[in-house]
């Protein structure tokens, strides 16, 4: 098991190296090259020359790449020129990151907690009304553009019914204490229960909108996979041996049926981060998604670069965890 994890870690480093190479080339390929990308188009010629020398752009490519690696390894991505002008791009990322983690965690929790039980239930009662209805629901969930769903949720539940807040992360009038940047967690830690509850209410609408896609995928995969597994010989054997349905369900059906689901959850991290860009923009939720949307609009490339790197890092780490989980529940994987 340890060997498996170490091997996956080494592979992960390979991914990060290739990624940094791609980002390096991407930064060079931007219109106007690295200097314009970092200073914006209105920079004075003196500043440009200064930065060109500071970055060693007169050096050969591999030297530039090496100094680039050294800079990003220490978090020096350059100053933001759009989202929070003057602040370091990495700082922008750090201040925005907890919000998105909070949002994405709630969204994936909603998707898993509704998707897996519903998928199992629908598969075991195939062609019942529950099955047909939830299959239809999951199909519509995939078909609706996430930002349109966000618009509609906001329109109904926040503007028309006024059940939930329209935008933002927390009512500023509460003047809540900040500890970790995770507003719900902050409220619990400082025992400001109203602040935690308010932050949670702000999370709900964007999280539901964001959960629509992973929910639909997780539900479909679970259902299809359970349908496959219940036909297997070992399930028939387990039935014939007279095992209780609880053991058959847990050990024989779910344990095998959830293998593809686990991989799917890992793959959904990317969709979740992309969806966050759209959802956060609709709800003016100040996470990295909203920062990214602004960075695109204002061509704030240093921030864009940090966010791409961060999104990739989150994805890679989540999938490493998924692979380890996979190896725990399916021993066959370890030997490959």
């Amino acid at each position, binding site marked *: 098991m340890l060997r498996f994890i170490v091997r996956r870690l080494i592979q992960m480093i390979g991914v990060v190296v*290739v990624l940094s190479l791609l980002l390096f080339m991407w930064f060079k390929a931007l219109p106007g090259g690295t200097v314009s990308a970092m200073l914006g188009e209105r920079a004075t010629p003196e500043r440009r020359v200064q930065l060109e020398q500071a970055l060693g752009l007169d050096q050969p490519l591999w030297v530039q790449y090496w100094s680039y690696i050294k800079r990003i390894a220490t978090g020096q991505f350059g100053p933001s020129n759009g989202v929070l002008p003057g602040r370091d791009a990495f700082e922008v990322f750090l201040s925005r990151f907890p919000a998105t983690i909070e949002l994405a965690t709630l969204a994936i929790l909603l998707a898993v907690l509704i998707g897996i039980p519903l998928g199992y239930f629908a598969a075991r009662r195939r062609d019942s009304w529950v099955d047909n209805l939830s299959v239809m629901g999951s199909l519509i969930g995939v*078909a609706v553009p996430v930002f349109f769903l966000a618009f509609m949720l906001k329109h109904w539940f926040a503007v028309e019914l006024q059940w939930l807040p329209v935008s933002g992360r927390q009512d500023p009038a509460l003047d809540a204490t900040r500890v970790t940047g995770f507003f719900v967690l902050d409220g619990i830690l400082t025992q400001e229960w109203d602040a935690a509850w308010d932050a949670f209410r702000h999370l709900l609408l964007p999280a539901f909108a964001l959960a629509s896609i992973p929910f639909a995928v997780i539900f479909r995969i679970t259902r299809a996979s359970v349908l496959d597994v219940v*036909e297997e010989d070992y399930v028939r054997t387990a039935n014939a041996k007279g095992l209780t349905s609880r053991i058959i369900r847990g050990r024989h059906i779910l344990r095998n049926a959830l293998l593809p689901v686990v991989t799917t959850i890992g793959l959904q991290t990317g969709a979740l981060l*992309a969806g966050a860009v*759209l959802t956060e923009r609709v709800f003016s939720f100040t996470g990295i998604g909203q920062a990214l949307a602004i960075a695109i609009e204002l061509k704030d490339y240093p921030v864009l670069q940090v966010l791409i790197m961060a999104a990739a890092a989150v*994805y890679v780490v989540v*999938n490493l965890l998924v692979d380890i989980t996979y190896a725990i529940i399916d021993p066959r994987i370890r030997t490959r």
Partner: protein
Amino acid sequence: MTPSPDPRRFGDRKKDRIDALAQTTGSAGSAGRPGVDSGAQGGAVLTVADAGRVAGGEGQSLIASAWRRLRRNPVFLTGAAITFIFVVLAIVGPWVAPHDPAAQPLLNQVRQQTNPVPGAQPGFPLGGDTVGRDLLSRLLVGGRQTLIVGVLATLGGLLGGLTLGTLAGALGGWVDALVMRIVDVMLSIPGLILAVSIAAIAASPSQTTVIVAIAVVQIPIFARLLRGSMLAQRASDHVLAARALGVKPHAIVFRHMLPNSLGPVIVQATLVLATAIIEAAGLSFLGLGNPDDRQPEWGQMLGQAQNLVSDYPHLAIYPALCIIVVALGFTLMGESLREALDPKSRR
């Protein structure tokens, strides 16, 4: 069991037997009741001469039996009907539209402050957009660009993914490792963010950058799916049987492993047709869609409606409904296709 003197015929029979074997190992649940299977298919009637033959080998191809069941499947028919109407609309749209989608007949009614969106009126049942163009005509014509974006992006992703996935799954070893590292890196950048990067390099977004961005995003998913199911099959009984019978490696890959791996790929392809259209809308929403809106596209119309959505929600709702219905059509069709092509659900 004496070998036929005609070598070609002998080869064919061996092939048939392996194919039948491949299908029964693929469908563990139905293997025990071959008679029931072929009876329920409504296909060849079981005779005494058929006794002992393996189900699925009755000269009825997978495609033929899939089609037999699809014809009567209401889900498939609904999806196919939606897709058919969509494709027809994409072809004839410009001729049935009452107005030129690029002309601005209602421009004189647009007032920036008091009346940014002209309302419904005789000749313009849905009213106009912010620059006085007929909304209905734009919806009718918009399907064509939407179809082009969806199909081209899916084809691009499918082609790339099939190549990479088959290479990795069939060859294994260092090829597999290399391909999977590339796939991992591509997967590790979320789709929309990858699209953003591509658009940033292209200096100005266009229809082509939208298509390329969406296609590239799909490649690793196809590749990973295909590679996963091919790896699982390499260890399975039907591949072992085929190898034991001396079937050539490339024939094992293309006749036994690839067809059996296509199920999830087909599901994915239909989902991608739908998501490609939706993602194009997402790119427009972020300001990275095709800025040239003389040729309307539903995703672009939806993306451009964002600033007016609270006061004039119909500007967003109409194109969104079009996208939802079409995406649903593709998904319904693909889902029923998957069930029909899957030997396990032959019943």
